[in-house]
Protein backbone atom coordinates (compact mmCIF):
# COMPACT_ATOMS: atom_id res chain seq x y z
CA UNK A 1 0.00 0.00 0.00
CA UNK A 2 1.07 3.54 -0.74
CA UNK A 3 2.89 5.14 2.16
CA UNK A 4 1.46 8.66 1.72
CA UNK A 5 -2.16 8.94 3.01
CA UNK A 6 -4.60 10.88 0.80
CA UNK A 7 -6.74 11.72 3.85
CA UNK A 8 -4.95 12.47 7.10
CA UNK A 9 -7.04 13.18 10.19
CA UNK A 10 -5.41 13.90 13.51
CA UNK A 11 -6.97 14.48 16.91
CA UNK A 12 -10.26 15.75 15.46
CA UNK A 13 -12.64 17.35 17.94
CA UNK A 14 -16.12 18.56 17.11
CA UNK A 15 -19.01 19.54 19.33
CA UNK A 16 -22.49 20.90 18.67
CA UNK A 17 -22.98 23.33 21.52
CA UNK A 18 -22.59 21.25 24.66
CA UNK A 19 -22.85 17.92 22.87
CA UNK A 20 -19.56 16.36 21.84
CA UNK A 21 -19.69 14.61 18.45
CA UNK A 22 -16.02 13.77 17.90
CA UNK A 23 -13.59 13.32 20.76
CA UNK A 24 -10.20 13.18 19.11
CA UNK A 25 -10.36 10.98 16.05
CA UNK A 26 -7.19 9.87 14.25
CA UNK A 27 -7.45 8.10 10.92
CA UNK A 28 -5.49 7.90 7.69
CA UNK A 29 -6.92 6.76 4.38
CA UNK A 30 -4.58 5.71 1.59
CA UNK A 31 -5.12 6.12 -2.15
CA UNK A 32 -7.30 3.38 -3.60
CA UNK A 33 -8.45 2.25 -0.18
CA UNK A 34 -12.09 1.56 0.66
CA UNK A 35 -12.95 2.25 4.29
CA UNK A 36 -16.33 1.42 5.76
CA UNK A 37 -17.37 3.17 8.98
CA UNK A 38 -20.00 1.54 11.18
CA UNK A 39 -21.36 2.39 14.59
CA UNK A 40 -24.52 3.18 16.50
CA UNK A 41 -26.45 6.34 15.63
CA UNK A 42 -24.95 9.36 17.34
CA UNK A 43 -21.49 7.77 17.32
CA UNK A 44 -20.14 10.58 15.12
CA UNK A 45 -19.57 8.58 11.94
CA UNK A 46 -21.53 10.95 9.66
CA UNK A 47 -19.97 13.95 11.38
CA UNK A 48 -16.50 12.53 10.74
CA UNK A 49 -17.36 12.06 7.07
CA UNK A 50 -18.72 15.60 6.79
CA UNK A 51 -15.57 17.01 8.36
CA UNK A 52 -13.48 15.56 5.52
CA UNK A 53 -14.93 18.08 3.03
CA UNK A 54 -15.65 20.58 5.77
CA UNK A 55 -19.44 20.60 5.38
CA UNK A 56 -19.09 20.48 9.13
CA UNK A 57 -16.70 22.90 10.84
CA UNK A 58 -14.58 21.44 13.62
CA UNK A 59 -13.16 23.00 16.75
CA UNK A 60 -9.77 21.31 17.03
CA UNK A 61 -7.57 18.92 15.11
CA UNK A 62 -6.11 18.60 11.64
CA UNK A 63 -7.65 17.41 8.39
CA UNK A 64 -5.35 17.20 5.36
CA UNK A 65 -6.73 15.99 2.03
CA UNK A 66 -4.34 15.33 -0.85
CA UNK A 67 -1.71 17.45 0.93
CA UNK A 68 -4.11 20.40 1.27
CA UNK A 69 -4.90 21.33 4.88
CA UNK A 70 -8.50 22.38 5.48
CA UNK A 71 -7.76 25.85 6.73
CA UNK A 72 -8.67 28.71 4.41
CA UNK A 73 -11.88 29.04 2.39
CA UNK A 74 -9.77 28.76 -0.74
CA UNK A 75 -8.28 25.45 0.39
CA UNK A 76 -11.67 24.13 1.38
CA UNK A 77 -13.09 24.80 -2.08
CA UNK A 78 -10.02 23.24 -3.69
CA UNK A 79 -10.49 20.12 -1.56
CA UNK A 80 -14.20 19.94 -2.31
CA UNK A 81 -13.56 19.80 -6.05
CA UNK A 82 -11.41 16.69 -5.39
CA UNK A 83 -14.02 14.98 -3.19
CA UNK A 84 -17.34 13.64 -4.38
CA UNK A 85 -20.08 13.23 -1.81
CA UNK A 86 -23.21 11.10 -1.86
CA UNK A 87 -25.92 11.83 0.69
CA UNK A 88 -28.49 9.67 2.42
CA UNK A 89 -31.32 11.82 1.03
CA UNK A 90 -29.75 12.09 -2.48
CA UNK A 91 -30.09 15.90 -2.56
CA UNK A 92 -30.52 16.01 -6.31
CA UNK A 93 -31.45 19.44 -7.66
CA UNK A 94 -35.21 19.08 -8.29
CA UNK A 95 -35.46 22.04 -10.67
CA UNK A 96 -32.88 20.58 -13.06
CA UNK A 97 -33.15 17.56 -15.35
CA UNK A 98 -31.03 14.48 -14.65
CA UNK A 99 -28.59 15.57 -17.34
CA UNK A 100 -28.36 19.11 -15.95
CA UNK A 101 -27.82 17.72 -12.45
CA UNK A 102 -24.72 16.00 -13.76
CA UNK A 103 -23.47 18.88 -15.94
CA UNK A 104 -24.10 21.95 -13.76
CA UNK A 105 -21.02 21.69 -11.54
CA UNK A 106 -18.84 20.72 -14.49
CA UNK A 107 -19.84 23.94 -16.21
CA UNK A 108 -19.87 26.24 -13.18
CA UNK A 109 -16.89 24.88 -11.24
CA UNK A 110 -14.74 23.03 -13.77
CA UNK A 111 -15.57 25.58 -16.52
CA UNK A 112 -16.10 22.85 -19.10
CA UNK A 113 -17.94 23.66 -22.32
CA UNK A 114 -21.51 22.51 -22.59
CA UNK A 115 -20.76 19.83 -25.15
CA UNK A 116 -17.88 18.44 -23.11
CA UNK A 117 -19.97 18.40 -19.93
CA UNK A 118 -22.83 16.63 -21.69
CA UNK A 119 -20.45 14.04 -23.12
CA UNK A 120 -19.03 13.31 -19.66
CA UNK A 121 -22.53 13.21 -18.14
CA UNK A 122 -23.95 10.80 -20.71
CA UNK A 123 -20.99 8.45 -20.26
CA UNK A 124 -21.50 8.47 -16.48
CA UNK A 125 -25.27 7.92 -16.73
CA UNK A 126 -24.44 4.94 -18.95
CA UNK A 127 -22.04 3.73 -16.29
CA UNK A 128 -24.62 3.91 -13.47
CA UNK A 129 -27.13 2.23 -15.74
CA UNK A 130 -29.76 4.89 -16.45
CA UNK A 131 -28.86 6.62 -19.73
CA UNK A 132 -32.51 6.62 -20.78
CA UNK A 133 -33.46 8.93 -17.87
CA UNK A 134 -31.22 11.83 -18.95
CA UNK A 135 -34.11 14.17 -19.73
CA UNK A 136 -36.33 13.22 -16.80
CA UNK A 137 -36.54 15.25 -13.62
CA UNK A 138 -35.44 13.80 -10.25
CA UNK A 139 -39.04 13.69 -9.01
CA UNK A 140 -39.87 11.18 -11.75
CA UNK A 141 -37.20 8.68 -10.64
CA UNK A 142 -37.22 5.93 -8.02
CA UNK A 143 -35.00 6.32 -4.97
CA UNK A 144 -32.42 3.90 -6.34
CA UNK A 145 -32.29 5.75 -9.63
CA UNK A 146 -31.97 9.09 -7.86
CA UNK A 147 -29.07 7.84 -5.80
CA UNK A 148 -27.31 6.53 -8.91
CA UNK A 149 -27.75 9.94 -10.54
CA UNK A 150 -26.26 11.47 -7.39
CA UNK A 151 -23.23 9.18 -7.76
CA UNK A 152 -22.88 10.18 -11.42
CA UNK A 153 -23.16 13.85 -10.43
CA UNK A 154 -20.29 13.48 -7.97
CA UNK A 155 -18.16 11.44 -10.40
CA UNK A 156 -18.56 14.10 -13.10
CA UNK A 157 -16.10 16.28 -11.20
CA UNK A 158 -13.43 13.56 -11.56
CA UNK A 159 -12.93 13.33 -7.80
CA UNK A 160 -9.98 11.51 -6.25
CA UNK A 161 -12.07 10.53 -3.25
CA UNK A 162 -15.74 9.58 -2.86
CA UNK A 163 -17.60 9.95 0.43
CA UNK A 164 -20.84 8.03 0.96
CA UNK A 165 -23.06 9.06 3.88
CA UNK A 166 -25.46 6.15 4.46
CA UNK A 167 -26.20 5.96 0.73
CA UNK A 168 -28.76 3.15 1.00
CA UNK A 169 -30.49 4.00 4.29
CA UNK A 170 -33.33 5.93 2.64
CA UNK A 171 -33.96 3.30 -0.02
CA UNK A 172 -36.60 0.62 -0.29
CA UNK A 173 -34.97 -2.82 0.16
CA UNK A 174 -35.33 -3.84 -3.48
CA UNK A 175 -33.39 -0.78 -4.62
CA UNK A 176 -30.41 -1.15 -2.33
CA UNK A 177 -28.55 -3.62 -4.51
CA UNK A 178 -28.59 -1.46 -7.65
CA UNK A 179 -26.82 1.30 -5.74
CA UNK A 180 -24.38 -1.10 -4.05
CA UNK A 181 -23.52 -2.57 -7.44
CA UNK A 182 -22.44 0.84 -8.70
CA UNK A 183 -20.36 1.33 -5.55
CA UNK A 184 -18.79 -2.11 -5.89
CA UNK A 185 -17.78 -1.32 -9.44
CA UNK A 186 -16.24 1.98 -8.31
CA UNK A 187 -14.27 0.18 -5.62
CA UNK A 188 -13.03 -2.33 -8.18
CA UNK A 189 -11.80 0.53 -10.37
CA UNK A 190 -9.58 1.71 -7.53
CA UNK A 191 -11.53 4.74 -6.30
CA UNK A 192 -10.64 5.88 -2.80
CA UNK A 193 -13.86 5.60 -0.84
CA UNK A 194 -15.02 6.34 2.69
CA UNK A 195 -18.44 4.82 3.30
CA UNK A 196 -20.72 5.20 6.29
CA UNK A 197 -22.98 2.19 5.95
CA UNK A 198 -24.21 -0.90 7.73
CA UNK A 199 -24.29 -2.96 4.55
CA UNK A 200 -22.10 -5.82 5.76
CA UNK A 201 -22.23 -7.56 2.39
CA UNK A 202 -20.77 -4.52 0.70
CA UNK A 203 -18.15 -4.11 3.42
CA UNK A 204 -17.01 -7.73 3.12
CA UNK A 205 -16.95 -7.61 -0.66
CA UNK A 206 -15.32 -4.23 -1.25
CA UNK A 207 -13.78 -2.74 1.88
CA UNK A 208 -10.11 -2.95 2.77
CA UNK A 209 -10.88 -1.80 6.27
CA UNK A 210 -13.90 -1.55 8.55
CA UNK A 211 -13.92 0.96 11.37
CA UNK A 212 -16.23 0.90 14.37
CA UNK A 213 -17.02 4.24 15.99
CA UNK A 214 -18.76 4.92 19.27
CA UNK A 215 -19.18 8.10 21.30
CA UNK A 216 -17.05 10.12 18.95
CA UNK A 217 -14.07 7.78 18.99
CA UNK A 218 -12.73 4.99 16.84
CA UNK A 219 -13.16 1.82 18.92
CA UNK A 220 -11.66 -0.76 16.64
CA UNK A 221 -10.59 -1.18 13.03
CA UNK A 222 -9.57 -4.17 10.96
CA UNK A 223 -10.14 -6.07 7.74
CA UNK A 224 -13.95 -6.45 7.53
CA UNK A 225 -13.94 -10.26 7.77
CA UNK A 226 -11.80 -10.16 10.88
CA UNK A 227 -13.66 -7.27 12.52
CA UNK A 228 -17.09 -8.78 11.89
CA UNK A 229 -16.14 -12.36 12.86
CA UNK A 230 -13.60 -11.88 15.61
CA UNK A 231 -14.01 -8.46 17.20
CA UNK A 232 -11.67 -7.94 20.13
CA UNK A 233 -13.47 -5.05 21.83
CA UNK A 234 -16.55 -5.63 23.93
CA UNK A 235 -18.33 -2.63 22.43
CA UNK A 236 -17.75 -3.94 18.92
CA UNK A 237 -19.16 -7.31 19.90
CA UNK A 238 -22.20 -5.68 21.50
CA UNK A 239 -22.87 -3.52 18.44
CA UNK A 240 -22.39 -6.34 15.93
CA UNK A 241 -24.67 -8.65 17.89
CA UNK A 242 -27.44 -6.09 17.48
CA UNK A 243 -27.17 -5.55 13.74
CA UNK A 244 -26.15 -8.99 12.44
Amino acid at each position, binding site marked *: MNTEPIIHIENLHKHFGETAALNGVDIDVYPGEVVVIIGPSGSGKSTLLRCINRLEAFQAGTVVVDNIPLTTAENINAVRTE*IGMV*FQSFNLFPHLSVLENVTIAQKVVRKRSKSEAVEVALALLEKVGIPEKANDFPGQLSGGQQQRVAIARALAMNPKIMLFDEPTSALDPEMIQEVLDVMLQLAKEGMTMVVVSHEMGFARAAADRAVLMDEGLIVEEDVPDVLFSHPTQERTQAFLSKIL
Partner: protein
Amino acid sequence: MRVRKESENILGHEVANSRIDSWWWLVAAVIVIVILLAILQPDPYWRIIRFVSDGVLVTVGVTLTAFVLTLVIGLLAALGRLSKIGFIRWATTIYVEVARGIPLLVQLLFWYFAFPSLIQGFGRLIHFQPLERYLANPFAMAILGLTFCYSAYMSEIYRAGIQSIPKGQNEAARSLGMTHNQAMRHIILPQAFKVVLPPLGNEFISLLKDSSLVSTVSVADMTRRGREFMAANFIPVETWLMIALLYLVMTLISARIVSWIERKTQTEDR
Protein backbone atom coordinates in the same frame (compact mmCIF):
# COMPACT_ATOMS: atom_id res chain seq x y z
CA MET B 1 -43.90 14.08 5.20
CA ARG B 2 -43.75 13.73 1.46
CA VAL B 3 -47.24 12.29 1.27
CA ARG B 4 -48.65 15.16 3.28
CA LYS B 5 -46.99 17.72 1.06
CA GLU B 6 -48.39 16.15 -2.06
CA SER B 7 -51.91 15.99 -0.71
CA GLU B 8 -51.63 19.66 0.23
CA ASN B 9 -50.53 20.43 -3.29
CA ILE B 10 -53.42 18.53 -4.75
CA LEU B 11 -55.81 20.26 -2.39
CA GLY B 12 -54.53 23.72 -3.27
CA HIS B 13 -54.61 22.71 -6.89
CA GLU B 14 -58.28 21.78 -6.80
CA VAL B 15 -59.22 24.90 -4.92
CA ALA B 16 -57.39 27.07 -7.43
CA ASN B 17 -58.92 25.15 -10.31
CA SER B 18 -62.50 25.39 -9.18
CA ARG B 19 -62.01 29.03 -8.25
CA ILE B 20 -60.52 30.28 -11.45
CA ASP B 21 -63.65 30.23 -13.62
CA SER B 22 -66.03 31.73 -11.10
CA TRP B 23 -63.60 34.51 -10.25
CA TRP B 24 -63.11 35.41 -13.90
CA TRP B 25 -66.88 35.90 -13.93
CA LEU B 26 -66.45 38.46 -11.17
CA VAL B 27 -63.90 40.33 -13.28
CA ALA B 28 -66.27 40.22 -16.23
CA ALA B 29 -69.19 41.37 -14.08
CA VAL B 30 -67.30 44.42 -12.80
CA ILE B 31 -66.20 45.33 -16.32
CA VAL B 32 -69.77 44.96 -17.56
CA ILE B 33 -71.01 47.26 -14.78
CA VAL B 34 -68.42 49.88 -15.75
CA ILE B 35 -69.40 49.65 -19.44
CA LEU B 36 -73.14 49.73 -18.70
CA LEU B 37 -72.75 52.78 -16.49
CA ALA B 38 -70.68 54.51 -19.18
CA ILE B 39 -73.25 53.75 -21.88
CA LEU B 40 -76.48 54.24 -19.95
CA GLN B 41 -75.35 57.28 -17.98
CA PRO B 42 -72.60 58.90 -20.09
CA ASP B 43 -73.08 61.98 -17.96
CA PRO B 44 -71.39 61.77 -15.49
CA TYR B 45 -69.82 58.24 -15.79
CA TRP B 46 -68.26 58.46 -19.25
CA ARG B 47 -67.04 61.97 -18.38
CA ILE B 48 -65.40 60.65 -15.22
CA ILE B 49 -63.66 57.85 -17.12
CA ARG B 50 -62.32 60.27 -19.74
CA PHE B 51 -61.22 62.73 -17.09
CA VAL B 52 -59.26 60.18 -15.03
CA SER B 53 -57.93 58.11 -17.97
CA ASP B 54 -54.50 59.82 -17.85
CA GLY B 55 -54.48 59.05 -14.11
CA VAL B 56 -55.02 55.37 -14.87
CA LEU B 57 -51.83 55.38 -16.92
CA VAL B 58 -49.98 57.14 -14.11
CA THR B 59 -51.21 54.60 -11.55
CA VAL B 60 -50.15 51.68 -13.75
CA GLY B 61 -46.82 53.29 -14.60
CA VAL B 62 -45.93 54.16 -11.01
CA THR B 63 -46.96 50.70 -9.80
CA LEU B 64 -45.06 48.78 -12.48
CA THR B 65 -41.89 50.86 -12.12
CA ALA B 66 -41.88 50.61 -8.34
CA PHE B 67 -42.61 46.87 -8.51
CA VAL B 68 -39.71 46.09 -10.84
CA LEU B 69 -37.34 48.10 -8.62
CA THR B 70 -38.77 46.37 -5.56
CA LEU B 71 -38.09 42.94 -7.07
CA VAL B 72 -34.40 43.78 -7.45
CA ILE B 73 -33.82 45.74 -4.24
CA GLY B 74 -35.88 43.31 -2.17
CA LEU B 75 -33.68 40.45 -3.38
CA LEU B 76 -30.50 42.35 -2.56
CA ALA B 77 -31.85 43.14 0.92
CA ALA B 78 -32.78 39.48 1.46
CA LEU B 79 -29.28 38.35 0.46
CA GLY B 80 -27.91 41.01 2.78
CA ARG B 81 -29.90 39.69 5.72
CA LEU B 82 -28.58 36.18 5.02
CA SER B 83 -25.01 37.40 4.51
CA LYS B 84 -22.15 35.95 6.52
CA ILE B 85 -20.67 39.44 6.88
CA GLY B 86 -21.94 40.89 10.15
CA PHE B 87 -22.03 44.51 9.06
CA ILE B 88 -24.11 43.84 5.94
CA ARG B 89 -26.54 41.72 7.95
CA TRP B 90 -26.78 44.44 10.58
CA ALA B 91 -27.32 47.27 8.07
CA THR B 92 -29.99 45.45 6.04
CA THR B 93 -31.82 44.35 9.19
CA ILE B 94 -32.00 47.95 10.37
CA TYR B 95 -33.26 49.04 6.94
CA VAL B 96 -36.01 46.39 6.94
CA GLU B 97 -37.13 47.18 10.48
CA VAL B 98 -37.19 50.93 9.86
CA ALA B 99 -38.98 50.72 6.51
CA ARG B 100 -41.62 48.38 7.91
CA GLY B 101 -42.07 50.41 11.07
CA ILE B 102 -43.11 53.71 9.50
CA PRO B 103 -46.48 54.20 7.76
CA LEU B 104 -46.15 54.33 3.99
CA LEU B 105 -47.99 57.66 3.84
CA VAL B 106 -45.50 59.24 6.25
CA GLN B 107 -42.61 57.83 4.19
CA LEU B 108 -44.05 59.31 0.98
CA LEU B 109 -44.49 62.71 2.67
CA PHE B 110 -40.92 62.52 3.96
CA TRP B 111 -39.38 61.73 0.55
CA TYR B 112 -41.39 64.44 -1.24
CA PHE B 113 -41.29 67.30 1.29
CA ALA B 114 -38.43 66.66 3.71
CA PHE B 115 -35.80 64.85 1.65
CA PRO B 116 -35.34 67.66 -0.96
CA SER B 117 -34.95 70.25 1.84
CA LEU B 118 -32.23 68.11 3.37
CA ILE B 119 -30.46 67.87 0.00
CA GLN B 120 -30.68 71.68 -0.45
CA GLY B 121 -29.36 72.23 3.06
CA PHE B 122 -26.48 69.87 2.38
CA GLY B 123 -25.79 71.72 -0.90
CA ARG B 124 -25.60 75.05 0.92
CA LEU B 125 -23.31 73.49 3.48
CA ILE B 126 -20.78 72.40 0.87
CA HIS B 127 -21.54 75.35 -1.48
CA PHE B 128 -22.49 73.08 -4.36
CA GLN B 129 -24.90 74.91 -6.67
CA PRO B 130 -26.77 71.99 -8.31
CA LEU B 131 -27.66 70.55 -4.91
CA GLU B 132 -28.71 73.94 -3.51
CA ARG B 133 -31.23 74.31 -6.32
CA TYR B 134 -32.39 70.68 -6.13
CA LEU B 135 -36.14 70.34 -6.74
CA ALA B 136 -38.05 67.16 -6.10
CA ASN B 137 -39.58 65.40 -9.06
CA PRO B 138 -42.92 64.11 -7.74
CA PHE B 139 -42.79 60.94 -9.82
CA ALA B 140 -39.25 60.08 -8.79
CA MET B 141 -39.97 60.74 -5.13
CA ALA B 142 -43.21 58.75 -5.21
CA ILE B 143 -41.48 55.78 -6.82
CA LEU B 144 -38.58 56.13 -4.39
CA GLY B 145 -41.00 56.13 -1.45
CA LEU B 146 -42.97 53.11 -2.65
CA THR B 147 -39.82 51.19 -3.51
CA PHE B 148 -38.10 51.98 -0.21
CA CYS B 149 -41.06 50.70 1.79
CA TYR B 150 -42.09 47.73 -0.32
CA SER B 151 -38.55 46.40 -0.82
CA ALA B 152 -38.44 45.77 2.92
CA TYR B 153 -41.58 43.62 2.79
CA MET B 154 -40.35 41.96 -0.37
CA SER B 155 -37.01 41.08 1.22
CA GLU B 156 -38.83 39.16 3.94
CA ILE B 157 -40.72 37.17 1.31
CA TYR B 158 -37.50 36.36 -0.53
CA ARG B 159 -35.79 35.45 2.73
CA ALA B 160 -38.55 33.04 3.69
CA GLY B 161 -38.36 31.52 0.21
CA ILE B 162 -34.60 31.05 0.36
CA GLN B 163 -34.80 29.56 3.84
CA SER B 164 -37.54 27.15 2.73
CA ILE B 165 -35.08 25.35 0.44
CA PRO B 166 -33.73 22.27 2.27
CA LYS B 167 -30.20 22.57 3.68
CA GLY B 168 -29.15 19.51 1.69
CA GLN B 169 -29.46 21.47 -1.54
CA ASN B 170 -26.80 23.92 -0.45
CA GLU B 171 -24.64 21.10 0.95
CA ALA B 172 -24.84 19.18 -2.32
CA ALA B 173 -23.90 22.29 -4.29
CA ARG B 174 -21.02 23.17 -1.96
CA SER B 175 -19.76 19.58 -1.90
CA LEU B 176 -19.42 19.83 -5.69
CA GLY B 177 -17.06 22.76 -5.18
CA MET B 178 -19.49 25.60 -5.88
CA THR B 179 -18.85 28.81 -3.99
CA HIS B 180 -21.57 30.37 -1.84
CA ASN B 181 -22.53 32.73 -4.68
CA GLN B 182 -22.57 29.99 -7.32
CA ALA B 183 -24.77 27.77 -5.15
CA MET B 184 -27.12 30.70 -4.56
CA ARG B 185 -27.37 31.60 -8.21
CA HIS B 186 -27.65 28.16 -9.80
CA ILE B 187 -29.28 26.03 -7.10
CA ILE B 188 -31.02 27.99 -4.33
CA LEU B 189 -32.51 31.05 -6.03
CA PRO B 190 -34.13 29.24 -8.98
CA GLN B 191 -35.95 27.00 -6.51
CA ALA B 192 -36.75 29.81 -4.07
CA PHE B 193 -38.17 31.94 -6.86
CA LYS B 194 -40.83 29.35 -7.58
CA VAL B 195 -41.82 29.32 -3.93
CA VAL B 196 -42.14 33.09 -3.68
CA LEU B 197 -44.01 33.74 -6.95
CA PRO B 198 -47.53 33.71 -5.42
CA PRO B 199 -46.66 36.00 -2.47
CA LEU B 200 -44.77 38.28 -4.90
CA GLY B 201 -47.98 38.58 -6.90
CA ASN B 202 -49.91 39.48 -3.79
CA GLU B 203 -47.37 42.21 -3.06
CA PHE B 204 -48.01 43.58 -6.54
CA ILE B 205 -51.73 43.89 -5.77
CA SER B 206 -51.02 45.61 -2.45
CA LEU B 207 -48.64 47.98 -4.19
CA LEU B 208 -51.26 48.78 -6.83
CA LYS B 209 -53.74 49.77 -4.14
CA ASP B 210 -51.20 51.62 -1.98
CA SER B 211 -50.08 53.60 -5.03
CA SER B 212 -53.22 55.71 -4.43
CA LEU B 213 -51.28 57.31 -1.57
CA VAL B 214 -48.98 59.05 -4.06
CA SER B 215 -51.95 61.33 -4.84
CA THR B 216 -50.93 63.23 -1.68
CA VAL B 217 -47.51 64.13 -3.08
CA SER B 218 -48.42 65.88 -6.34
CA VAL B 219 -48.64 62.83 -8.55
CA ALA B 220 -51.73 62.99 -10.78
CA ASP B 221 -52.71 59.35 -10.43
CA MET B 222 -56.23 57.96 -10.64
CA THR B 223 -57.12 58.94 -7.08
CA ARG B 224 -55.86 62.50 -7.46
CA ARG B 225 -57.67 62.93 -10.76
CA GLY B 226 -60.82 61.68 -9.01
CA ARG B 227 -60.46 64.34 -6.35
CA GLU B 228 -59.95 67.01 -9.00
CA PHE B 229 -63.07 65.86 -10.83
CA MET B 230 -65.10 65.91 -7.64
CA ALA B 231 -63.87 69.37 -6.72
CA ALA B 232 -65.07 70.68 -10.06
CA ASN B 233 -68.39 68.83 -10.25
CA PHE B 234 -69.50 68.10 -6.67
CA ILE B 235 -70.79 64.60 -7.36
CA PRO B 236 -68.96 62.49 -4.76
CA VAL B 237 -71.08 59.33 -5.03
CA GLU B 238 -70.68 58.90 -8.80
CA THR B 239 -67.02 59.92 -8.78
CA TRP B 240 -65.82 57.58 -6.05
CA LEU B 241 -68.04 54.74 -7.24
CA MET B 242 -66.36 54.88 -10.64
CA ILE B 243 -62.85 55.26 -9.19
CA ALA B 244 -63.48 52.28 -6.90
CA LEU B 245 -64.74 50.19 -9.82
CA LEU B 246 -61.69 51.06 -11.92
CA TYR B 247 -59.32 50.01 -9.10
CA LEU B 248 -61.34 46.85 -8.67
CA VAL B 249 -60.97 45.94 -12.34
CA MET B 250 -57.20 46.30 -12.09
CA THR B 251 -56.80 44.38 -8.82
CA LEU B 252 -59.17 41.59 -9.82
CA ILE B 253 -57.36 41.03 -13.10
CA SER B 254 -54.03 41.02 -11.25
CA ALA B 255 -55.40 38.49 -8.76
CA ARG B 256 -56.46 36.19 -11.61
CA ILE B 257 -52.97 36.38 -13.10
CA VAL B 258 -51.38 35.62 -9.71
CA SER B 259 -53.69 32.65 -9.25
CA TRP B 260 -52.83 31.40 -12.73
CA ILE B 261 -49.10 31.60 -11.94
CA GLU B 262 -49.73 29.80 -8.66
CA ARG B 263 -51.46 26.92 -10.40
CA LYS B 264 -48.78 26.74 -13.04
CA THR B 265 -45.90 26.48 -10.57
CA GLN B 266 -47.79 23.85 -8.59
CA THR B 267 -48.33 21.60 -11.58
CA GLU B 268 -44.71 21.95 -12.66
CA ASP B 269 -43.57 20.53 -9.32
CA ARG B 270 -44.78 17.11 -10.26
